[in-house]
């Protein structure tokens, strides 16, 4: 029943945005609807505390029915709108803004070598055909006639055609006097005709390669005729508001009404915005995009196609599909040619997805003679060991710490993020550098690695990650729980508050690095190999591009092998998707590669105990087995 006062207005400061709501609306959902930037790391489960808002005037109610009034700072996800309300979304509850850096790294240790030239033989082919005009003696149908011509040119036996091609076929063939430029997609079992153009038409065919990350989505627009890149764009995955990691996204899908659809629309919405930007900048038409290849982890791919991801997180961790049959763009509502096919690179398992397969593909792991490790330092921490053509992969759930998640001072690599630290012994003297030289807003993953090492070297923390409480520095002070150390004083930060790191943050970082190193060890020990046997370590991920290698080894994130054996490969998943887009053989290779990759499930009975052992041993700086890290400089001998 509607009464006159069921509508209320929520005013958001400092944006001065006014949101019309109904009484009883969930505040977080209302804020999202109005596109107010607000964090929601747990996806509205009420557990992470990141969506805190401050009530400036008016009233609301908690889920439990308690009244919220002026001066309270409730969690938006746990708040019901009951009346007009003015609230302030503080800086720490804001989602990091800014463009995702989509550039390939340049100024890094090691080098990013351009791929060996990939031949251009795209999944969407442009084939000019000349048909024999029909006669009473040759009364084959238009479609069979077209197929026959295509067969003669391409050697392919079987073709099908999209509905829209069939609808226009009779007219198009006759208008163009039985000459045509055929656009067809190689679906491996057969080719599918998706457009017939006039022979004079340039045969515009563009393709889109997309890396669908849990955190960010990056896309390349490619001219399929010559393989040239027409631009790259990146954006945060809109699904972030449904939870920070894949597990909270899966929970969102299963627990929220219409959760699967919301996730799907969030990710397709993100991709559509990238498409819009790319076609605008390249000056082409979005309907000219004839093929899309996506690389993403298994959960991301499920959500893209609107599939129920719930069993991914349930033992025995079974996805709905590993390899998704290519769907039409219209079926998942991507703004391209509706008949364009959307491919995704195949997954190996629930936690080793098409992104890591794409990485293995673009890194040419199967072709490498030397023993090679591919480490993707994302939330899932996928690792692949390539030895003599065989691939062994695992996923070492590192958590989002190195992406700035779950760390009180953490942030993504946005302007103002601290990316370098130097701390002099004694801990009083801290120098730092932020991205873009802006006032500090937080510490990004690269900065956190640097920071952990600097804190250890300066004797601020010990090898267990505990603060040296006898440190005589004003920067170290007691906090609500334990201690905190001031990294950047408030007069140098954007929001005016001191930027600090707490004991719990350090423990989180240590756990993350321990998970990755333990994952590497598990792959090696399963093949009875030693770290020295590794000829090359490829570090992938947008994150893995500016890391201070010495610091990363010094904290025990990576094995202590010669630094020149490390190579940063940047966004290898995106490159893999692009490669599959412009080279049909690579698409086939990816299938082979996924089939041939062995997935080591670290939570399985036979591995779990050993992994825990490795993990606990690695929860030390650099490691309990210090002798494995000879180059790590000795730590706090200066204490006391």
């Amino acid at each position: 029943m509607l009464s006159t006062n069921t509508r209320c207005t929520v005013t958001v400061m400092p944006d001065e945005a006014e949101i019309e709501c109904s009484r009883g609306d969930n505040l977080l959902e209302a804020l999202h609807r109005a596109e107010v930037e607000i964090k929601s790391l747990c996806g509205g489960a009420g557990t992470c505390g990141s969506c805190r808002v401050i009530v400036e005037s008016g009233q609301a109610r908690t889920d439990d029915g308690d009244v919220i009034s002026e001066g309270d700072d409730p969690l938006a996800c746990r708040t019901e709108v009951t009346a007009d309300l003015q609230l302030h979304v503080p800086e720490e509850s804001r989602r990091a803004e800014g463009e995702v850096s989509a550039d390939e790294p340049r100024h890094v240790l090691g080098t990013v070598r351009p791929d060996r030239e990939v031949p251009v033989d795209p999944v969407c082919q442009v084939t000019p055909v000349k048909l024999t005009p029909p006669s009473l003696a040759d009364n084959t149908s238009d479609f069979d006639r077209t197929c026959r011509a295509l067969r003669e040119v391409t050697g392919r036996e079987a073709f099908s055609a999209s509905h829209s091609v069939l609808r226009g076929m009779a007219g198009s063939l006759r208008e163009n006097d039985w000459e045509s430029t055929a656009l067809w997609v190689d679906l491996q079992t057969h080719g599918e005709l998706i457009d017939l153009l006039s022979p004079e038409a340039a045969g515009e065919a563009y393709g889109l390669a997309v890396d669908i990350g849990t955190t960010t989505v990056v896309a390349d627009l490619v001219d399929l005729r010559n393989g040239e890149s027409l631009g790259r764009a990146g954006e945060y995955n809109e699904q972030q508001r449904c939870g920070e990691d894949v597990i909270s996204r899966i929970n969102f899908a299963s627990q929220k009404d219409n959760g699967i659809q919301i996730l799907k629309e969030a990710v397709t919405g993100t991709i559509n915005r990238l498409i819009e930007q790319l076609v605008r900048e390249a000056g082409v038409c979005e309907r000219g995009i004839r093929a899309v290849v996506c690389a993403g982890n298994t959960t991301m791919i499920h959500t893209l196609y609107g599939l129920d991801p719930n069993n991914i997180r349930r033992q025995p961790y079974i996805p709905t599909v590993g390899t998704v049959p290519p769907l039409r763009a219209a079926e998942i509502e991507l703004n391209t040619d509706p008949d364009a096919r959307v491919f995704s690179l195949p997954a190996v398992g629930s936690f080793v997805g098409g992104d890591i397969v794409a990485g293995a593909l673009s890194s040419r792991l199967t072709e490498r003679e030397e023993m090679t490790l591919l480490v993707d330092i994302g939330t899932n921490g996928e690792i692949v060991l390539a030895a003599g053509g065989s691939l062994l992969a695992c996923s070492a759930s590192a958590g989002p710490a190195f992406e700035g998640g779950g760390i009180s001072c953490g942030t993504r690599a946005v302007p103002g993020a601290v990316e370098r630290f130097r701390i002099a012994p004694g801990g009083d003297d801290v120098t730092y550098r932020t991205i873009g030289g802006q006032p500090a807003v937080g510490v990004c993953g690269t900065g956190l690695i640097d920071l952990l090492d600097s804190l250890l070297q300066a004797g601020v923390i010990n090898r267990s990650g505990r603060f040296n409480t006898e440190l005589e520095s004003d920067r170290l002070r007691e906090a609500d729980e334990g201690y905190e150390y001031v990294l950047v004083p408030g007069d140098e930060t954007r929001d005016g508050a001191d930027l600090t790191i707490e004991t719990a943050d350090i423990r989180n970082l240590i756990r993350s690095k321990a998970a990755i190193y333990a994952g590497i060890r598990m792959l090696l020990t399963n093949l009875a190999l030693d770290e020295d046997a590794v000829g090359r370590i490829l570090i992938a991920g947008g994150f893995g591009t500016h890391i201070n290698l010495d610091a990363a080894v010094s904290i025990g994130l990576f094995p202590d092998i010669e630094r020149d054996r490390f190579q940063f490969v940047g966004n290898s998943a995106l490159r893999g998707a692009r490669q599959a887009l412009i080279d049909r053989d690579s698409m086939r290779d990816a299938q082979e590669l996924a089939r041939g990759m062995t997935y080591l499930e670290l939570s399985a009975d036979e591995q779990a105990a050993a992994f825990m052992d490795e993990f606990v041993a690695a929860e030390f700086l650099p490691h309990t087995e210090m002798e494995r890290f000879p180059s790590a400089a000795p730590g706090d001998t200066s204490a006391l």
Partner: protein
Amino acid sequence: MSLTPVKKSWNHQIKEVTIGTGESAVTVGGETTLPFLHDEGDMPNPPRIALDVFDAVPDTWTEDLIEATGDEINDPVEWAQKGVEEWGVELISLNLTQHALEEDPASPEDCAKLAEEIAEATGLPMIVWGAGEEEPDRDVYPVVSQALSGQRCLLGSASEESYKTLTATCIADGHNIIGESPIDINICKQVNILVTDMGMSEDRIVVFPTNGALGYGLEYAYSILERTRLAALGGDRMMAMPIIIRAGTESQRSKEVKAKEDEFPEWGSRADRGIVWEATTATSYLQAGADIVTMNHPEAIRLIRQYIDTFMNTE
């Protein structure tokens, strides 16, 4: 058909740690083999028994144990002396508890005085334990340590969370240190690293991996001791410390030792149970690699002495 016994030899040695000075000094460790496998390597120093002495009558002990200890239990100095004279122990394990009382705690100076008196009265090397509570212990360690300065005692315990005060004070006063870990092989080693990082010499550390009594997770603690020892003999320097185990106090916590006879008539005499439980706990850990066992019951101590003598006899 003859059978050739398989012998394993190791290339590494457990570090020797000397507790005390002069004639009564006791050295533990030094093994180049798993316990008592004299055919496979050397065991130059026998495992040692330390008598637990408390600064107040332990309120959790059974009447049987209190009775077996005798009236001396009311005076820690006399108690320790009895241990030397009647039970022939070679180490005193002094447990300080009264400084951690909420009401009317003993002062650090009181604790130090007691420790000094016992050391003087017995002439034996001393092991001194804090109450396991961070703040009161932190106040007591430096004072006790200083009072016993130069006597090369074994003070404990340092944990991953709290090791700095004790380590610093042990270094300053020339004592050995006990590194404690929660039945965790990794943390055991980490504590050793943290303590040596501060400048403590590796041959001044005895590790206390923590242990339960028979029936209370003994198997797990046993496996931890065994793994520690195997790692050490395999060349892990930071694991190659002698091991101390608490057989007496842990046994006193078990139901099988405490339960009255009318509750479980089928379990037999409680007085006997107490002895057997402690002795069995001790022998198990000796077989796992313990170098020092702290014990309570005089009869259990006698049994374990016999046991050690038997197993150390190489003839």
